[in-house]
């Protein structure tokens, strides 16, 4: 997935990203609140008006920071989306739904009303719903922000494994360096809607940029 000359506006905020590439090795989008991480993800998916050249696969899926669920059971939330995106039969979609719920550790709440789930459980459900669609590009916006610390490694491994097995391009917007390091090799650091720094995630600590250094020390405290 590639983007060139991306320009998007949301109110008075302007996002101006000259280039961004992402493949299955993953690209993390880092930056403080208000830097434009979410706007960049939305623009890449074509969910907000943007100009520039964007090449993305036909089948994309996203997990939002505050995942919305549909009225119905956790299982139905996955199966109904899988049916509509992949054209699966109801029986196949249910089988897939059960498998995805097991992958994210939600088998025990398969029959529960999705709206009664905790925020962390909803994030797990949203991840299962997105992966269930077998995306060729996956956009994750703070996908583990409300997931308990013990549960994060398994979810990171699930996403990493899916990307490696399927070749799915991965773009992760996050404030957690731990999530970025676990899922992505590449990183771009945004400042007020523009790319301030880009390179490998592992080289961020050594970046010769005072802004990135300041950010990184902050991440160390919070991640």
């Amino acid at each position, binding site marked *: 997935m590639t983007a060139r000359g991306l320009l998007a506006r949301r109110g008075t905020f302007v996002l101006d990203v000259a280039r961004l590439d992402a493949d299955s090795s993953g690209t993390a989008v880092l930056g403080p609140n208000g830097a434009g991480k979410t706007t960049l993800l*939305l623009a890449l*998916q074509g*969910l907000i008006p943007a100009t520039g050249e964007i090449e993305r696969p036909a*089948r*994309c*899926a*996203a997990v*939002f920071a*505050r*995942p*919305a669920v*549909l*009225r119905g059971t956790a299982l139905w939330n996955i199966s*109904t*989306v899988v049916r*509509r*995106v992949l054209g699966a039969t109801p029986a196949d979609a249910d089988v897939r739904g059960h498998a995805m719920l097991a992958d994210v550790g939600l088998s025990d709440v398969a029959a529960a009303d999705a709206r009664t789930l905790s925020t962390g459980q909803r994030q797990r459900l*949203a991840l299962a*719903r*997105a992966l269930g*669609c077998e*995306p060729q590009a996956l*956009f994750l916006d703070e996908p583990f922000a409300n997931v308990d610390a013990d549960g994060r490694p398994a979810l990171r491994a699930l996403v990493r494994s899916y990307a490696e097995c399927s070749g799915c391009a991965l773009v992760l917007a996050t404030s957690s360096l731990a999530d970025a390091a676990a899922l992505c090799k590449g990183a771009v650091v945004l400042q007020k809607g523009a790319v301030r720094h880009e390179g490998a995630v592992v080289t961020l600590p050594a970046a010769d940029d005072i802004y990135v250094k300041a950010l990184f020390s902050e991440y160390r405290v919070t991640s």
Partner: protein
Amino acid sequence: MPAIAALSVAVSGIATLLAALVAIPGALWIVHGRSPVRGALMVFFAAGLGLPPVAVGLAVAFALWRSGPFGWLDALYTPGAMAFAQFVIVLPLIGTLAVVAMRGGDTTLPMQLAGLGIARRHRLALLAREVAPGLAAATLAGFGRALAEVGAAQMTGGNIEGQTRVLTTATMLAVGRGDFGQAFSYVAVLLGIVTLATGVALTLQRRWA
């Protein structure tokens, strides 16, 4: 009495159903569409909320009058004319309440469904399903308004016994004759129908919610 009550329910029910079939897709278009003219439909819905039934009745009666523009339809003083007038009366109400119901939901849901790659027509169906309880309430409110209005029913139906007499026009006639006992019995049936419809709608809402 049973025939009058049945005609009331049939006329108002058909008017409400048709209005819902137009108003709900219209509300979906207002809330989730992209056309700049959708604002005009919202203005039409909002302005129509205060539309006096007697004004609608007058307009429909004029249009269907023998020498009027649609006189050739020969539809004045028929249940069809009454249903059409009630359709016009309740359309803005159902449309406005449907818009309110749709805007009251999770505002990020449309974008999240789009983010999963779900086709637009499937997204709209899922979004309508999400607010089904609110849409049911909007439709019920429309039914109540259609059933209770009297001005349009009188003008477009003519209160002809056995043909276009409904509970509200029959009540007016009974009061005019000084037969308050009969009038109260019509009103009691009217209230019974509204209560029953409300009960059914609330039950459906509880099951859906």
